C-alpha cells in the first residue's frame, strides 16, 4: 500500500482524510499511484495530472522522503520507502499569499 497525503481542497473533493492508502500495482510509479488514487476517488480525476498535457499541474508539488520529486518523470519508480508504505507521498499545493 502506498500512503498519500493530500492538500485540503483535494481532501474536500474526495471526502477523505488527510492521508489515504492505495494499492498500487508494480512498478510503483508516481503515475501509477495517481491513477490508483483517481480510481479510488474519481472526483479527483484531472485535478493532479492535467487531462490535456498528461503532466503534473504546475501549482502542485510531490514530496517523498524529504525530497522534492516534482521534476522526476511520472513514469519513474517511487523510492522503496514510499512504495513499501514506510514513508508517505506528499501532494502539496503551492503556497500563495497576499
Amino acid at each position: 500500500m502506498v500512503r498519500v497525503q493530500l492538500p485540503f481542497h483535494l481532501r474536500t473533493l474526495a471526502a477523505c482524510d488527510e492521508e489515504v492508502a492505495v494499492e498500487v500495482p508494480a512498478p510503483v510509479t508516481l503515475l501509477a499511484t495517481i491513477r490508483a488514487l483517481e480510481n479510488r476517488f474519481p472526483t479527483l480525476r484531472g485535478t493532479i495530472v492535467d487531462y490535456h498535457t498528461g503532466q503534473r499541474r504546475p501549482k502542485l508539488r510531490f514530496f517523498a522522503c524529504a525530497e522534492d520529486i516534482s521534476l522526476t518523470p511520472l513514469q519513474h519508480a517511487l523510492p522503496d520507502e514510499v512504495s513499501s508504505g514506510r514513508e508517505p507521498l506528499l501532494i502539496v499545493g503551492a503556497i500563495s499569499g497576499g
Partner: protein
Amino acid sequence: MSTVRVLVGTRKGAFILTSDATRQTWEVDGPHFAGWEVYHMKASPVDPQRIYASQTSDWFGQIIQRSNDGGKTWEQPGTPPGEASVGEDGMPLAESNKFVYDTSTGSGKPLTTHQWYDGTPHPWEFKRVWHLEPSLQDPDTVYAGVEDAALFRSSDGGENWQELAGLRGHGTGKDWMPGAGGMCLHTIVLDPNDEQRMFAAISAAGAFRSLDGGKTWRPINKGLVSNTIPDPTAEVGHCVHRIDMHPSLPNVLYMQKHWDVMRSDDGGDSWTEVSGDLPSDFGFPIAVHAHEPETIYVVPIKSDSEHYPPEGKLRVYRSRGGGNDWEALTNGLPQENCYVNVLRDAMCVDSLESCGIYFGTTGGQVYCSADSGDNWHAIVRDLPAVLSVEVQVIA
C-alpha cells in the same frame, strides 16, 4: 407564493440566496465549494432543481458540479457519492471534468493554434469553464463556454463533453487573440423560439451566430468599432463583454462591448451604437427587462484602466427605449466612495410581474431591486468578489 433563488458565484465559493416574491428578506446559504472559484452557476429552465456549477482552481483545474435538489447537495456528474464510478473494465464511467478540444480530421477543421499576445501562433490550452447555459428544452443538455475560447455541449447532464468545433474552425479562429482577462467564451444566448439559433461572444474575438444548433458559425461584428485593434472595423478581434436578448424580439440583440453599448435589429447582421448619454460606455454586463423588451440595463465603469464606477457612484443605468436615452438608478446604491466593479456574468433579471434586477460586485455585495431598478437594497454585503449572479423564480 413564489420562491426566488439567486445563485451567486464568487472567488471563494458559491452562495444561494432565497426569498419569497416580495424579495425583501433573504436567507443566505453557503459557501458551497469553499475556497474555490465558482465562475458560474445556472439552473435548467425545464427542471429548476437541476443546477450546474463551474468550480475551478489555478491549482487543481476544472470541476463540474451538478445539483438535483436546488443546491442542497452536489455531485460531480456521473460520479454520485457512494456509487461505483468505474466500469467493469476499470475505466471511468464519466469524464465530467474533461474538456478536450476537437483536433480530429473528422471534424473537417482541425485547428490547433490561435494568436498569442505577440502575434505568434499559440496552441489552444483549456483553462476553465466561464459560463454554463442549460438547454431551454432538455435538463440533461447544457452548453459550456470555456477559456481558451471554445464551446462544448453535454447531452448527458454534464457527464461527458464534446466540443462544437465549428465555432473555432469556421475560419477566423486562428486570428483570435486573448484580452487581458484571457481568451474566454463567456456568453451563450439561446433563442427560446428556435434552439437551433444561438449566439456566442468571445473576448477578444467578437460575437458569433449559429443557425444549426452550433454546428456551423459565422462572425456577426459588422458595425462594431474598436480602436484597440489595428483595423477598428475588422471582422473579428472585438472585445465583446456581454450580449442579451428578449425572447419576444429575437432579432433585437443588445451588447456591452469593451467600450460602447450596441444594438442590432437584424439578429446580429449589423450593429449600431446606443451609448447615448451614458457617463461612460465602458462596462461589462447588460440585461433586458423581463417584460419590456426595449428596457435595458447597464452599469457604466469609468474606463478599461480604472475598473470602478465614474465619480465613485454606483449607478445602474436604464433605457426604456432600447438605448441612447438613459436614466441613472441610484436609490439605495452607494453614491460616494464606491470603487467596485460589476463583472459580465454578474447581472440578471427575474420573471416576476414586478421585474427584479440583481447584480453582484467585486466588493462582495449583491444588490436587488424588486421594482425594475427604481429602488435597491443589498441582499448581502460582505461576500468574496462576485463573479456571477443568476436568478430563478420557483412556483
